[in-house]
């Protein structure tokens, strides 16, 4: 269910008027989605769910409590507010309580497409049909997911804050496999505008990789020069910035960004000098949400600039305690790219591997952000500047902190999607990386 800004504003005003607490925050969000799912060149589960939610947080002094539900009627809203107030009254004081924010200034959202909002289930099926027919004709097995959604969110506080954001999103991933089970290729991306999605091209990429990756050769594990395609980079960068860039954790001594002896590495050169990563909610390629967490405006934020650790996420309480400015988390991420094409990266590689994407990434050691995971859907051996053969998948054990110190060359930054890094819009380049640790061979295709 989608509420317009005027409807959302009216709803939050009605809720805040009902509040008896010393302060109150109201959040409302809703979405309408459609998806078609296919496997083995045919439809499997197809649907169209929708939802709406209201959350009320009430505060008495430093006591807080939340209750969730949703209803536009006065009686139901009153029940919801009362429930949150009763929860708050039973809570002990939280010494880290921060009062709700007052009015803020927000940039307009840039991630809404009326085309996406108007897309039907038939249009989704029609977009996929030629790809499935091609796969069938080529004796390949295509599986995929094509989903569109429209969503809104708003936040309002008893101190006068109101923010509203509406956006659309598209997710498409497609896997093609050879019938003998030895080849698999993949393509995937997100966008906010369905009309910008090139479904046939993505299908062609997945099918091409499936054919080229079949009957792989077994290669010994070890440290390899690798070309990481954007999906693989998106996962590692998304996990690093989204999950590990935390000021409090660094100050408290439990982060890779902790300085030996105390304090954080903020301001120090922690990454290679060719690495710059920022978030900008108004970015044309990857527009993000206009507010973050408790209603702080999402603003352009440099996380890494020329290798220097520029910012870590910092909540309002920790900022106040440490006399810093709060730094809201990112709603979008861009890694600045370079000009080297993938073809040129291959040409300059004596021996290395081209990696399509990663799978099942988990943190092994938070101290060093050591991650493990596997390559998937296409790994190719490069010898003397040419791709020579497909190879079996590998398990990697590598830290993105270390990886971002070993970047040799970068392609242009492009919108990318990784299954492992969540739904945040990401723009990253293809990377040529030295000494990437591949610790064992996987028999999976």
């Amino acid at each position, binding site marked *: 269910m989608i509420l317009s800004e005027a409807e959302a504003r009216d709803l939050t005003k009605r809720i805040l008027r009902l509040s008896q607490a010393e302060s109150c925050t109201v959040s409302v969000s809703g979405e309408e989605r459609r998806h078609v799912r296919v496997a083995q060149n*045919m439809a499997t*589960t197809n649907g*169209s769910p929708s939802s709406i939610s209201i959350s009320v947080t009430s505060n008495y002094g430093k006591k807080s409590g939340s209750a969730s539900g*949703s209803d536009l009627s006065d009686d139901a809203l009153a029940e919801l507010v009362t429930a949150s107030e009763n929860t708050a009254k039973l809570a002990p004081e939280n010494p880290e309580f921060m009062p709700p924010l007052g009015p803020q200034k927000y940039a307009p959202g840039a991630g809404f497409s009326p085309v996406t909002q108007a897309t039907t289930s038939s249009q989704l099926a029609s977009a996929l049909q030629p790809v499935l027919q091609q796969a069938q004709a080529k004796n390949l097995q295509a599986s995929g997911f094509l989903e569109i959604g429209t969503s809104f969110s708003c936040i309002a506080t008893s101190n006068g804050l109101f923010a509203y954001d509406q956006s659309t999103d598209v997710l498409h991933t497609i896997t093609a496999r050879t019938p003998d089970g030895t080849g698999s290729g993949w393509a995937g991306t997100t966008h906010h505008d369905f009309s910008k999605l090139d479904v046939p091209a993505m299908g062609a990429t997945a099918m091409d990789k499936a054919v080229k990756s079949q009957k792989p050769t077994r290669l010994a594990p070890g440290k390899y020069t690798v070309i990481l395609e954007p999906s693989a980079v998106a996962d590692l960068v998304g996990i690093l910035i989204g999950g590990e860039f935390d000021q409090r954790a660094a100050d408290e*001594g439990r982060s890779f960004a902790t300085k*030996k002896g105390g304090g954080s590495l903020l301001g120090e050169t922690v990454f290679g000098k060719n690495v710059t990563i920022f978030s900008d909610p108004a970015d044309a390629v990857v527009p993000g949400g206009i507010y973050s967490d408790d209603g702080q405006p999402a603003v352009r934020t440099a996380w890494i600039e020329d290798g220097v650790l520029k910012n870590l996420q910092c909540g309002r309480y920790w900022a106040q305690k440490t006399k810093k400015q709060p730094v809201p988390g990112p709603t979008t991420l861009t890694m600045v790219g370079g000009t080297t094409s993938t073809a040129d990266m291959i040409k300059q590689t004596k021996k290395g591997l081209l990696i399509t994407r990663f799978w099942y990434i*988990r943190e092994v050691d*938070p101290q060093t952000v050591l991650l493990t995971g596997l390559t998937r859907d296409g790994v190719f051996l490069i010898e003397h500047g040419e791709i020579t053969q497909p190879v079996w998948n590998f398990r990697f054990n590598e830290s993105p902190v270390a990886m971002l110190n070993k970047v040799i060359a970068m392609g242009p930054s492009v919108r990318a999607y990784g299954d492992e890094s969540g739904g945040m819009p990401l723009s990253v380049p293809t990377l040529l990386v030295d000494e990437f640790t591949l610790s064992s061979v996987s028999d999976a295709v």
Partner: protein
Amino acid sequence: MGGCACATLLPSTLFLGMSDARAIEAADKLDLPAKMRLADMALNVAKAQGASYADFRLCRYQTEYLEAKEHRLQTSATGTSVGFAVRVLVDGTWGYASSPLATEVEVKKATAHAIEVAKASQPLQLRKFELETLTSYQDRWDMPMKNDPFLVPVDEKIDKLLSINEAAMKAGADYATASFAFVREEKFFASSVGSRIQQTRVRTMPETEVTVVDKATGKFASRAGLCAPRGSGYDYILGYNFLAEAAKSAEQAREKLKAKSIAPGQYDLVLDPTHLWLTIHESVGHPTELDRALGWEANFAGTTFCTPDKLGKLKYGSHLMNIVADRSQEGGLSTVGYDDDGVSWIGNEGFPIVKDGLFVNYQMAIGQAQLIGQKTSNGCAFADGWGSFPIQRMPNVSLQPNPKKCSLEDLFADVKHGIYIMGNGSWSIDQQRHNFQFGGQLFYEIKNGKLGGMLRDVAYQGSTVEFWNAMDGLGDQSTYFLGGAPNCGKGQPEQVAPVSHGAVPARFRQINVLNTERKDVA
């Protein structure tokens, strides 16, 4: 984190989309005849519009999440979510739609919407879905429970959490987190074959973790609690000694900082059931899902090395290996009276997946069995919310105890050079379930049959079939432990399922162990 066969535990995953309070009120007021009327309406509309099969699920989820950090309460949140879904099979194509409003108007609208989705997808239906003959049930099933967690005063639960952290901090922890999450799941299911089923179950999910920091060296270490989530009431919380574990966790986290770093190589491993349940989940539970074998998860969760030609032939593990699927197991997170296809587990004591080391059965939902020459589903469907499509999900999948007497110490006794691993650290496995890597919470050296000092930087890698065939020791019933995860991920859109795994300690010979310390970072 998406794309994960067993997602990381995030509080947000415990809370489904909160629905319309009017709907909650409406559903709360719906008596059984009213639910029946809505179901009849949906099923009749579906049939009139061409559905050969349809089902209607009306669900209510009640949630509570409490989290304490050190000496403060960080979160106290309650929620209720009510809604329904209509699923239709039209000319061999599935479609579904859902709504948070359980009203006649919305039921008609959603049913028509589900039909529209199915018809829109028909051009992609290369092969029509066909269902086996389904049995009709009229029943009510309620999970047995002593203490309803939603009736326990919230301040009592908050005090408990704060006391856990207090115990950890007193014992030397620098940071401590403790949380309780509770879910009550109420489902009404009706299908076009005539089933009308009501069932209720509750999940209780505690989590704890302590962290210690050595500022001089810049090192830190954490120790997560070993308490598993369960399909139980608050009596489970009352019966677990959180305070003792919190204090011990702080001491063990401190000990980790000074523990000996492992030398990589081949070791005999004795895996505690607090650890082994997850290895079972990843390397036995997921590979034996039939939808993976059929290629239906190829684009996301992956396929499996357990292809249908291996059924009844693959020597999955040693003769000691007996794996049973059971959705009637007491305390199991996957335990139900009926699955979300309406298949009964009443009086069903489960089925073997691996028998004396041989792969003998898949897990199945409806519409799958006939594709491998079998007759019916074995009741392994689940939808994680009222707005989700039921897909094949894992039942409680457990390693059976050794019928012969065997203690943990007996397993150590025959190890000259090995490692004992407790609890779960990191976990990862490839998309066909061959290559895995697991860490843990606690690692101890085993030397000449005796348990030695603590180790650190340990992870082991293996390949599933080779690994399970390397098992040569198994604990008896007295060593049994029921672990589990509340949030196993699969499907597109991704769904999270709660599932338990029983295990006993087991010994594995000559497994590859690596050292995970990186000296080139920080």
